[in-house]
Structures are given as structure tokens and as C-alpha cells.
């Protein structure tokens, strides 16, 4: 197919005309154009018929996707299909907003998140989106670093390339991208919800650690990474660089500088999830052992909760999960943490401006797309050694102290004392203050 030119006009199956404005990019399967669709700027992906063997599969799949709608608004989902032009067709989707970067820009250190909180939000958004997608019975099949657009200010995510998304009984036939495919797929197996979870683990590891989980010293000793060695190190004999039992493909200070920076920051929970994802058992014997998206959500939320604003220098710092006399990573001073607010399985440090989120309370029970929603904030008055919690939600909270009951109205504030428990929706938050 010859490329479309600026000014060309196409018509969609819904009878809407599309005007081609410019070529945005080109991939293996097709070309992406910026177009005007129904008066709105949109993106159009036109398939290269010579490169896509099963064009009819894509057409039928896109029709189904359009009919069923996006799993959540994090997906740049197909919206309309063009009528056939020169033996091919394309589909309409939303454009990437200008404040979103390609995930590769972060891996290439061209830009960085504004904070660790934003970076963890990014992980939560990705995991939550794939949880919703899998819950609907879909498989993504080709999950890799090229599928995400990321807003570095807050970690919001948009997921592109959704035309392979299908039910597992009718796969597109795509295998995936080298280094992101699960070992079983590398060895010729079919992509599935379980193999999506391996690819998800690779993306999360790269997001946090900025290196590949299987590229330790053994893998990187290969002089030429051809198909033979790709199959060996990513299919037949994959080995995690932080495998607790086998260090033969471990990290080295010279090569894995980013890993040295970031791995020590991970909570025990997060480390365990990575170890589980890239365990020999999950990768080579039983793919059901890959952690569920909900496991990631809970661990990531606790991880994010330990990143807070230092009450002294007001920069983002990280509180070690057992240390209640933490030293700020920025100003190097010990800052006050008055205790922990325990809600569900989460430990929330009681220090100035720490937020309580809706997801602390509902513990991802809703199975919907994650949106961070603050419902409370810790406030302090150090001159009087007072700590309190303000209710930012629009509902009243129950309160119990020494058998006496009370309430914290929406917008109200309650003083936090040791042993007080708060009934917030269906959860109970208990205050454990440190003894002075």
C-alpha cells in the first residue's frame, strides 16, 4: 500500500469522513497518521497488507472491540474502522496528549518522574488496567515497553496498540516482542493471561530498576544476542538477576548501577513479588505462580505509602517500613513519625501531610480501574505534640476510644491518640502511637 498523503479523505464504516493531516510514525504492522475525524483530531492506524498476514482477523477483532468498548479509560481503544482502501483498512483512536511521554523516554533517561510517588502511581495504573482487562476475559498478548504513554507529573498512563487484545480462544497469532515474551511463548507456546503477567513483571521491573530482570552477568556475556541465545536466556534457561538461590546470572556493580540504586529501596513485599515472578518455578514449571495483579496493587500501595514529604525539608523522602525514627534521604535529619495508622493490611506513617486514600480502605475490592482518591490527611502541631486526621471524604466516619463512640464528620478533624479506632466505610483504622 502506498502511503496516504496529507489532504486525502477516507470514510469509516460509521459513514464518517476522515481527513489525513500528517504521518506520525511507522511500525512493523502499519503507519500511524494524525487525522481529523468528525471535526476532532484523532490517530489513524493503517495496516500494511503485505506485513499483516491475518488482516481479516484484525477487522473482525476491531469490530468486536468497538462494540464492547474499552475496559477502562486508560486504553487508547479503537473507535471506528475505515472502509477498505487499496486492499487494506485502518482504525481510529484517540491521539496521545502532548503531556504524555513514551515509556522508552524514561528508560532512555530522557525524562524522569516528578517523584517516586508518581512512578509508583504509574505502576499502579498499569497493573490496575491489566487487572480490568483480564477480568473481562481478554488477553493483551504483546505486552512490552512500547505499549505505554506516561505522564511524568503524576504517573498517569495510557495504553496503546490494543488491536491484538482478544479472548484467548481467538488469538491474533502474534508471538510478542523478544525479551518481553514469557519463556513458554519464546519456546513456541501461546500467549495467555498468565504469560501477560510475566510481561507485566518485566515492564514493572524495568520501570523501577531500569534494567532487564533476566540480563545478569551470564546473559550479558553472550558476544552476539542472536535467536539461539535469545531462546536460551529468555526461553530455555531464564534466570533472574536477583534469584535468591542461583547467583550465576547475578548483578554486578559495574554493569547494573541502576539496580544497585533501586533494589534496596524496594519493600520486602515488592522484592518477593519480583522473585516470585522470575522464579524458576513460575517461569519454567507452573505459570499460575506468576503473581496476580491484585497482589501487585496491594504491595504497590503500601510501597507508595512509605514515600512521604519530609516534615523538615518538605522534599519527598522514603520511610523504612520498620523504622519509626527515620532519617530524611534529602536533608539527612531525623524527622518525627508519631506512630502508625493501621488499616486493612496497610501501615500508614503518622506524620505531617501523609494522605489516607480510598484504596487503603477498599483494598482494591471494587475491581475497577485505580484512580488515587484522597479521603484523609494527617495533620500535626509540633509545638503541642498533637497529631490529627482530617476527613476529606464526603461521608461521616465512626470513632471509638475506650468504649466511647463518636464520629468525624466530612471535613472534620479528630485528634489521634493511642488506641483510637476509626470506622471508615467498611474498614477499621487503628492508631498506634509511639510511646514517648
Amino acid at each position, binding site marked *: 500500500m502506498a502511503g496516504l498523503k496529507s489532504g486525502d479523505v477516507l470514510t469509516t464504516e460509521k459513514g464518517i469522513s476522515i481527513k489525513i493531516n500528517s504521518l506520525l510514525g511507522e511500525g*512493523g504492522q502499519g503507519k500511524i497518521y494524525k487525522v481529523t475525524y468528525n471535526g476532532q483530531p484523532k490517530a489513524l492506524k493503517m495496516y500494511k497488507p503485505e506485513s499483516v498476514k491475518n488482516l481479516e482477523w484484525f477487522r473482525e477483532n476491531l469490530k468486536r472491540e468497538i462494540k464492547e468498548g474499552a475496559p477502562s479509560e486508560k486504553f487508547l481503544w479503537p473507535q471506528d474502522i475505515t472502509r477498505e482502501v487499496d486492499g487494506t483498512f485502518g482504525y481510529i483512536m484517540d491521539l496521545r496528549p502532548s503531556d504524555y511521554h513514551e515509556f522508552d523516554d524514561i528508560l532512555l533517561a530522557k525524562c524522569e518522574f516528578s*517523584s517516586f510517588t508518581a512512578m509508583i502511581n504509574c505502576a499502579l495504573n498499569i497493573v490496575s488496567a491489566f487487572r480490568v482487562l483480564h477480568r473481562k476475559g481478554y488477553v493483551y498478548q504483546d505486552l512490552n*515497553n512500547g505499549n505505554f504513554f506516561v505522564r511524568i507529573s503524576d504517573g498517569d498512563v495510557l495504553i496503546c496498540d490494543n488491536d491484538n487484545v482478544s479472548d484467548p480462544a481467538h488469538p491474533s497469532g502474534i508471538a510478542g516482542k523478544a525479551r518481553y515474551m514469557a519463556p513458554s511463548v519464546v519456546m513456541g507456546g501461546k500467549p495467555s493471561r498468565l504469560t501477560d503477567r510475566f510481561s507485566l513483571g518485566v515492564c514493572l521491573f*524495568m520501570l523501577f530498576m531500569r534494567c532487564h530482570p533476566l540480563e545478569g552477568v551470564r546473559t*550479558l556475556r553472550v558476544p*552476539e544476542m542472536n535467536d539461539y541465545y535469545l531462546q536460551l536466556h529468555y526461553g530455555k534457561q531464564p534466570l533472574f538477576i536477583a534469584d535468591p538461590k542461583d547467583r550465576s546470572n547475578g548483578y554486578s556493580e559495574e*554493569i547494573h548501577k541502576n539496580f544497585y540504586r533501586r533494589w534496596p529501596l524496594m519493600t520486602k513485599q515488592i522484592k518477593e513479588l519480583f522473585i516470585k515472578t522470575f522464579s524458576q518455578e513460575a517461569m519454567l514449571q507452573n505459570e499460575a505462580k506468576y503473581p496476580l495483579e491484585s497482589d501487585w496493587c496491594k504491595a504497590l500501595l503500601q510501597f507508595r505509602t512509605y514515600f512521604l514529604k519530609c516534615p523538615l525539608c518538605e522534599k519527598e523522602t522514603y520511610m523504612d517500613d520498620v523504622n519509626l525514627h527515620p532519617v530524611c534521604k534529602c536533608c539527612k535529619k531525623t524527622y518525627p513519625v508519631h506512630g502508625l495508622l493501621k488499616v486493612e493490611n496497610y501501615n500508614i506513617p503518622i506524620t505531617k501531610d501523609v494522605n489516607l486514600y480510598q484504596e487503603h480502605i477498599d483494598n482494591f475490592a471494587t475491581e475497577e480501574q485505580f484512580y488515587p482518591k484522597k479521603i484523609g490527611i494527617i495533620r500535626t502541631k509540633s509545638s503541642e505534640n498533637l497529631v490529627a486526621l482530617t476527613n476529606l471524604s464526603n461521608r461521616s466516619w465512626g470513632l471509638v476510644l475506650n468504649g466511647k463512640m463518636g464520629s468525624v464528620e466530612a471535613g472534620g478533624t479528630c485528634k489521634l491518640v493511642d488506641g483510637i479506632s476509626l470506622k471508615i466505610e467498611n474498614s477499621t483504622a487503628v492508631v498506634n502511637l509511639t510511646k514517648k
Partner: protein
Amino acid sequence: MPDTIDELEELKGGMIEEDKPECINRRITPIFFLIDNSMSMEGVKMGTVNTAMEEIMNDLKNFNNADTELRFAVLSFGVECTWETGDAALVTCDGIWNELSVANVGLTCFNTACLELKEKLSGTHGFFKFAAGKTITPPVLVLMTDGNANDGNRDGETGIAELQKNKYYRGSYKVAIAIGSEANQKLCENFTGDKELVYTAYNALALKKILEGVVKCSVAVSSSGTSDTQIIQNPDPVAPDSRNLKNVLENEFDTDELTEINIPVEETDWD
């Protein structure tokens, strides 16, 4: 207690700025251009190579992803063999192409060029000596010539026999562009080891189109940049499976446009 909640803004800076991570460790995709600059290349042929390479280099500077990093070398061979990009290391694509000129003597020292190439296809003393942790994808070798070898066997057999002893050569993707009807097809075939990976450009327009297509496709296949990787059963430990490259090139050139423009012409018509 404070009267107002004044600290609800998002966190910024702090720890994340203290110790910023480095660019992710990427594999290197090496591409070698072996360009005949004997006197017979003078005029439209070399002019076309230069203008096409200018545009290719300009495009390749944007080939910057988190999976692979492109680096290249240019070896010209006429009466002399010269590493135009320097003989110390592969260079990164900055978008600039330094114009190649032709030699004022008619000899084409292809066999000598093969020996030069063999020396540099090495991880101990050649172009593949990198810092620890760097690995390469299969090298891409692109040969462009319009004649015969004049330094020994005219089909380049002596030089290629030496190259065959080199593991990186055997592990590379090789494509040859025979420029004009008088180019030695046998030499090109000997170099690639596969007749189907020899493309003949009969005129300037076709040469430009073929060269652009060859570079784009071979870089994409070597770096596995496409998302529809086909699983290869029992791959060879050294030689890459060139079927994927052939398929991609076939699709790239399977257009009426190239067939229409690439019509054999008299050798004198190049000027």
C-alpha cells in the same frame, strides 16, 4: 491545629533527583557499509550513494529506542581500503554523512577489503570490544559494488574464504547491492551466501530505493524491533536465520513502483 489544609499539592523533587538512574543498558546493532569507490563508481553512481546515505543517516539518528542502539562503520574499497568512519570503533549515528569520493585509479580491492573487515569483526581487538555488559545483535553487512574484484580472484572468493573463518561474519545478516548491469553478481552472491539477498539497481532511482529499504529492513530484523517476532525452531548457534530478513525485504520491494523504475539500462546511461 493548623487552620487550613495547605499542603495538598503533589510531591515533587526530593529523592528522585538525588540519584538519577542512567540510560538503560542496550544492545548494540552494528551496521557496516562496504562501498566500492573505484573509478567506475564516479558520477551518478557515487552521487546517488552519497545522497541516499545522507537521507538514511538522517533517518537513522532517530533510531533510538530502549532495546537497541545503532552504531555503524563505513569501509570504502577502491585501489585502497579505508575505514571512512575511523578504524578505532563503531560510531553512533549523529545524522551526518561524510561524502565519499571515488579513487582516481580503476582498481577494486575487494579481497583486501574482506581482510580489513575480518580484522574489525572481533570482540578482542576489533570494533566489538565494548565495556562490560554490552552485547550486540547480529551485525548487518551491506555491500555496494559495480564491478569485479581486481586484487586476486575476480569473484572475491579468496577474501570471502578468509571472512568465512570469522564467527561474527557467519553470524551476520548480509545484503549486497549490485550497481548496474556490469556488477559482478557472483561476487555479490559469494558475499551474501544467498542469491536472494543480492539486489541489482539498474538506475539511480532504483539504487536509492533499494539502499533505503535494505538498511531499514535489515536494521529492524537484526534489532528485533518489530512486535511480531516469529518463533524460529532450533536456531543455529551462529548463523542467523535469514528467512525473516528475506520476507521483510520481499514485502518492502514487492511494489509496482520499484518494478517500474528498476529497468535494465546500458551501463553508459548512468551518466
